[in-house]
């Protein structure tokens, strides 16, 4: 095993070591500094992982072809590590308030992140499948980690049952693709299949794989689980899974379809178009009617999967430049979506009090008067989710729609613009409620006019989310260059 191979997986090893370290710490007799030791082990692992991600360098395939380190894997690993690093401080108040198992919670969070990083590095179908399983299994448990909360149990149960079903699709599809290609390695897969004509096997396999990933991304018609699971899971878990799984899944899907099955684009292209169009419509219409902000954000996350899939659909174009533009736009959008949605979910905890999160629109009424800063940060996030400049959401949608029009997917761009206009209504409703509504006197629920106690950690996470949203909106060039580099090395 050459040492260069080991340096490829340095970030994954750092995260894994931190996860094991936290559990190990928990097995010893508790000391007063126990909780902070566990917390700092997590931070240390994440910082080490980000430090080890350094060095652009040439794309490198290692470990006998199982893993690849290239700009795509680095871009997505960075996004995943950022989401994890924000999810850890966001989780601590919930862990304390609901009496959750701290070491196991954080270890599972980091193990899930390690699975995601392996997923975006996967260069063969078996590693890809096992990474999906590592990240999913950890998330099933995290959804149900509030063991005495019936909604958390329901969330874990639904996610697990439907997730296992989707895993079946994914595995069956991989088996068929292997049968058609004669190889599990992405290099040589496209040539092994040799075009789509005459290979119903490959087409069936690709369709099943796309369906499996569509489930993980929460794309319609495989989105049914999203609102219930996101609503029932502890909010920091929702914040983490709603962004990190999508980043990892999108990275792997792009690698598999564009990198591994470029010659079969006429098989998966129409599927991606169908999924993108349906997902945008279903997500946005679903979000319109929600009374709970958490459910609204869940439907919003479905809608945003649809937008990101526009990029994948555009990448089916036979022109390499358009394919690069499509994937690059999808990757940038995943990063933009990550910072704004994570911030928005954490805001729900920040706006409530310990043990009682803000859930409905009514809970947010008049928040601007009580907590002007919190309301301002949420406004930034909502404006970005709605796709209004000068925010990340606007730039993301702009590059996506531009890529779609260039690649000839005008229909998708039109659906994207129309559904974004629908989205403006429900995102800005949050802002209107915060700034213009008076807190209602609900019988049995006292509304104190003074600011309730809140955790400053949560405030920092929301603030970082909002700041990055603005940064990506105002100075998108560096990030766009990064995502373009990631997309261009992907093409065979």
């Amino acid at each position, binding site marked *: 095993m050459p040492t260069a191979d080991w340096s490829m997986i340095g970030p994954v090893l750092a995260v894994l070591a931190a996860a*094991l370290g936290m*559990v*190990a710490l928990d*097995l010893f007799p508790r000391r007063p500094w126990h909780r902070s030791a566990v917390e700092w082990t997590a931070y240390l692992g994440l910082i080490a992982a980000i430090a080890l991600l350094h060095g652009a360098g040439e794309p490198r395939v290692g470990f006998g072809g199982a893993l690849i380190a290239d700009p795509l894997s680095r871009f997505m690993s960075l996004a995943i590590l950022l989401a994890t690093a924000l999810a850890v401080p966001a989780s601590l108040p919930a862990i304390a308030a609901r009496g959750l198992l701290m070491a196991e919670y954080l270890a599972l969070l980091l193990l899930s992140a390690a699975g995601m990083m392996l997923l975006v590095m996967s260069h063969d179908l078996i590693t890809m499948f096992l990474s999906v399983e590592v990240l999913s299994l950890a998330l099933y448990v995290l959804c149900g980690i509030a063991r005495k909360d019936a909604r958390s149990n329901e969330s874990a149960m639904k996610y697990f049952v439907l997730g296992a079903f989707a895993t079946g699709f994914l595995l069956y599809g991989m088996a068929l693709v292997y049968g058609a290609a004669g190889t599990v390695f992405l290099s040589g897969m496209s040539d092994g299949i040799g075009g789509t004509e005459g290979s119903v096997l490959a087409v069936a396999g690709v369709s099943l794989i796309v369906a499996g990933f569509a489930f993980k991304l929460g794309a319609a018609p495989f989105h049914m689980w999203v609102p219930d699971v996101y609503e029932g899971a502890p909010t920091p878990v929702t914040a983490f899974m709603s962004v990190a799984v999508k980043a990892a899944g999108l990275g792997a899907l792009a690698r598999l379809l564009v990198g591994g099955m470029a010659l079969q684009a006429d098989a998966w292209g129409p599927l991606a178009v169908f999924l993108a169009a349906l997902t945008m419509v279903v997500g946005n219409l679903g979000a319109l009617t929600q009374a709970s902000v958490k459910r609204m954000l869940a439907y919003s996350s479905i809608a945003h999967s649809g937008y990101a899939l526009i990029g994948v659909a555009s990448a089916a174009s036979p022109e390499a430049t358009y394919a690069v533009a499509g994937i690059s736009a999808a990757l940038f959008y995943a990063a933009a979506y990550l910072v704004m949605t994570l911030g928005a979910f954490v805001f729900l905890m920040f706006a409530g009090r310990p043990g009682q999160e803000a859930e409905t629109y009514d809970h947010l009424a008049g928040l601007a008067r009580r907590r002007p800063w919190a309301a301002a940060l949420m406004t930034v996030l909502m404006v970005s989710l709605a796709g209004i400049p000068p925010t990340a959401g606007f730039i993301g949608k702009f590059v996506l729609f531009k890529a779609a029009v260039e690649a000839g997917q005008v229909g998708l761009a039109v659906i994207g613009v129309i559904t974004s206009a629908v989205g403006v209504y429900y995102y800005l409703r949050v802002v209107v409620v915060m700034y213009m509504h008076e807190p209602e006197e609900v019988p049995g629920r006292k509304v104190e006019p003074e600011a309730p106690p809140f955790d400053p950690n949560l405030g920092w996470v929301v603030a970082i989310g909002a700041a990055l949203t603005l940064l990506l909106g105002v100075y998108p060039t560096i990030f766009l260059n990064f995502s373009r580099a990631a997309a261009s090395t992907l093409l065979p």
Partner: protein
Amino acid sequence: MEWAIVALYAGAVLGLGVAFLAASRLLGPSRPKPAKSEPYECGVPLQAESRIRMSVHFYLVAILFILFDIETVFLIPWAVLHRQLGAAGLLEMGIFISVVGFGLVYVWRRGALEWE
């Protein structure tokens, strides 16, 4: 040809089972009565269903058994090939066993192997 032996063996096992059942059915007396179908022919009447909801602890033991069972599956090829694989194989298996072994230590220290 070697599979013919397996088929012969399977046939013998199956045939023997069927033969015993058939012999019992044909030769034994059969006079069914409702009382004979009771779980305890000469006890008090049943008070409740025998199917009760069992402790989740059984499940925990069973799932842990399966997980370590799967670990064993991976040990077999290594055990067969360990001479040829040499130090590299030992290292690879060492990493695997350490990670799963860490899981065992966790289960142990958490007291999940104790009967509550």
